[in-house]
């Protein structure tokens, strides 16, 4: 071109082009940075491959599905956690301790199961006879017992969380809870559940 070869105009033209290109590159760079930040933000909000279960009852027919679902999820490579609250905490006991408790809490302790082998049933409990029959049938049909399901769940890295607030309320001490259990509150649960793909209330 004629302009390019002009000794006065050529450097001026080059300077102008450089300035335009620099401005455009800076603009694009800012856009890329903005998009990366947005992507990171979106990624942090994406659901994790996680199952969160709330267990509120201490009967065989509630504890069994909770632990079976958690175990299944863990076997599928998902994160699984069970948040036990109210009666659900009784499932996590491995002994009963009365010392250091008030009269009312001692009475409550006496009325609650002290081991996952002592759980009742929500239906057909019949003062314990129904639950005993259920345990017998589970054994006969080679269905894992509740203590074994808990053991296996911990082995498969299922997180079991006991609700600290309801433990205090119901007079359950951490000395009565089996090893491997974590303690937490609503924040622990919400943090886990807010990004879970599956959340169940049992």
């Amino acid at each position, binding site marked *: 071109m004629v302009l390019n070869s002009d000794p006065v105009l050529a450097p001026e033209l080059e300077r102008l082009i450089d300035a335009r290109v620099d401005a455009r590159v800076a603009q694009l760079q800012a856009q890329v940075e903005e998009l990366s930040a947005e992507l990171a933000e979106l990624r942090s909000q994406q659901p994790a491959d996680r199952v969160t279960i709330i267990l509120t009852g201490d009967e065989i027919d509630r504890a069994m599905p909770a632990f*079976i679902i958690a*175990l*299944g999820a*863990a*076997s*599928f*490579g998902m994160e699984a956690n069970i948040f036990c609250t109210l009666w659900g905490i009784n499932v996590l006991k491995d002994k009963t301790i009365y010392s250091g408790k008030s009269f009312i809490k001692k009475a409550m302790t006496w009325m609650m199961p002290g081991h996952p082998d002592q759980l009742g049933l929500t239906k057909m409990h019949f003062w314990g006879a129904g639950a005993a029959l259920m345990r017998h049938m589970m054994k006969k*049909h*080679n*269905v*894992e017992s509740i203590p074994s399901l808990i053991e*296996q769940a911990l*082995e*498969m890295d299922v997180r079991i969380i006991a609700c600290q607030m309801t433990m205090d309320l119901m007079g359950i001490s951490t000395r009565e809870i089996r090893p491997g259990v974590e303690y937490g509150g609503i924040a622990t649960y919400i943090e886990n559940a807010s990004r879970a793909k599956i959340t169940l209330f049992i």
Partner: protein
Amino acid sequence: MSEFQLDCCGLNCPMPIVKIAKAFRDLQIGQTLEVKATDPAFRADVEAWVRKTGQQLIRYEEGPVKIALIQKVK
């Protein structure tokens, strides 16, 4: 015949899948595991498990004792 065998006969849901998942932790990529089971839901369970975990079901035999041959591909 596979290099690794797992006998889940007599076990019920969810134990066969739990045992497969545990066994796969120790397997190297390319190795296969032969699983025998009597759980009535075994076929559906094992098929879902390979789909979700991205492993390969090489062979499945139905019968009183069901046999699944699974390969670790990832």
